[in-house]
């Protein structure tokens, strides 16, 4: 009945000489939590960067919240969390200052009244309220990532587009992030999130889209990941290297193909 929140049709994106996306269709409806999966270089980041208007498709169309990409899109209803940028910018900036820049959008070029408390609230949602006045360069990598999430949340978006929000973030922080997301999704947030593995977010994801070589190869129920050691019910059916004391050193010494002796594929 309602128009889709994100509607990308036959999107092709070329970056220089490489044809990164080759006809991607992606539709995300209100209230969905869609995970975008795929190997490195499959085009996941390129797709989300196209969806939020950073890259221009060479062919195809993208609309957000019913408006084709451009000035008509209500950007204040969309929050984007890019992959972590290097914090080593030339001039120091506090976490609150970085978060406050999320309050600007479209033609709003000045901070609204009360931006300080709003920035602090957003930082509180990611558990960093006490670091609001610290330089972002003094925060750890995972904390910097959370500052970027707070920057997207501060405008209270209806749609959140995240590019690997939990890459390099420790397990407790991932759990805290999942808890925050659960609360926001409960209040009606629509999410498109690039992930390497479903991890802590597995319970929240309603649909998964898998990219391979710039094309969608799966669109539907979240795929069951290959059970790793951490998966519940994982059974060791293969021998471990410790049980193969004679073969183990050979891997590095012989000319045979590397990896034949390895036991864990896809864990």
């Amino acid at each position, binding site marked *: 009945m309602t128009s889709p929140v994100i509607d990308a049709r036959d999107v092709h994106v070329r970056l220089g000489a490489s044809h990164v996306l080759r006809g991607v269709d992606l539709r995300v409806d209100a209230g969905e939590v869609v995970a975008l999966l795929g190997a490195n270089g499959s085009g996941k980041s390129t797709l989300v*960067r196209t969806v939020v208007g950073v890259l221009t498709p060479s062919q195809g169309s993208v609309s957000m919240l019913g408006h084709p990409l451009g000035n008509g899109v209500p*950007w204040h209803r969309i929050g984007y969390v890019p992959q972590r940028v290097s914090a080593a910018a030339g001039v120091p*900036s*506090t976490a609150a200052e*970085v978060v406050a*820049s999320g309050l600007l959008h479209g033609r709003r070029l*000045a901070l609204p009244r009360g931006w300080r408390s709003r920035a602090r609230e957003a930082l509180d949602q990611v558990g960093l309220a006490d670091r609001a006045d610290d330089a972002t360069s003094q925060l750890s990598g995972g904390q910097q990532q959370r500052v970027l999430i707070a920057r997207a949340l501060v405008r209270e978006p209806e749609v959140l587009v995240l590019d690997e929000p939990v890459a390099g973030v420790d*397990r*407790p922080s991932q759990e805290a992030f999942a808890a925050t997301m659960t609360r926001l999704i409960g209040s009606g947030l629509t999410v498109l999130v690039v992930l390497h593995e479903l991890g802590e977010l597995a319970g929240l994801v309603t649909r998964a889209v898998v990219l391979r070589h710039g094309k969608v190869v799966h669109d539907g129920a979240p795929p069951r990941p290959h059970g790793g050691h951490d998966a519940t019910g994982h059974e060791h059916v293969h021998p471990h290297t410790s049980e193969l004391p004679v073969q183990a050193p050979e891997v590095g010494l012989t000319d045979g193909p590397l990896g034949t002796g390895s036991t864990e594929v896809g864990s």
Partner: protein
Amino acid sequence: MSEIGYMLTDPLMQRALVAALLVGVSAPVVGTYLVQRRLALLGDGIGHVALTGVALGWLVGAALGLVPDDVLAIPGAVVAAVVGSVLIEVVRRRGRTSGDLALAIMFYGGIAGGVLIIGIAGGSSGNLMAYLFGSISTVTSTDLILTVVLCALILLVGVGLRPALFSVSHDEEFAISSGLPVWALNMAVAVLAALTVTVAMRVVGLLLVSALMIVPVAIGQLVTHSFRRTMAVGSVIGVVVCVVGLSITYWYPVSPGSLIVVLAIAVYAVVAGLHPLLARRRPARDPHPDIPDDVEVGTTSEAGECER
């Protein structure tokens, strides 16, 4: 004390002091954005191009028979600086040529063009010296009005649009995804830099212009964590070194521009030297968040005793 009174009643000195004050406030404001974008040398590139503008203004003035023949030098510098900085921004956006190559070409082209054109205009490269090294003692009332107007514009845009300019300078991709007019904001920074160069040209000269934009910011970021405060500290330092430097030249016949820049670098050296000492006096605090992690470490009393 009365010596200072004499200085303050000297109309020549009054104009120079007002110009120094305004430039001291505005140059670091723009410099903060340049440092943030890792374009600290952009001011130098623009300064060199402005030299060609000075010479072109001179050439046009001479051709039109205007008196004095350098009346168009400053408008020429403004135009050339704006064109040059907009070109750099376009090159940076295209990303074909790296920013530092484009800057290098501007450096050489600016100086060579300036010297070549001033010769054609019937002058000598000596005529350019006042622009290269500053000539604050020759600030006329007209110059002062132009300085006031341009500095007001720089402060209005540079401070008024700070959140938006910070956003594009900090993370351009996020700014695009927020629907901000990124192109216009980038151009605003480029034009601000060009105007600052031409305004500061009178005080410290084109060759040292960039120092006034960058060194106070370098001092500011030593002593604060915040973008806003870095800019504020930079401006205060800018004013202090400009006014103090200029005042000293009232009694000692040295070049004001060079003195101001040397003062700024001296302040930087002192602050950089003292900063670790001051920082050490603050009690160290534990930056580690008090949250559980997923690493199992033996914390039984037995393990504790083993460590001892």
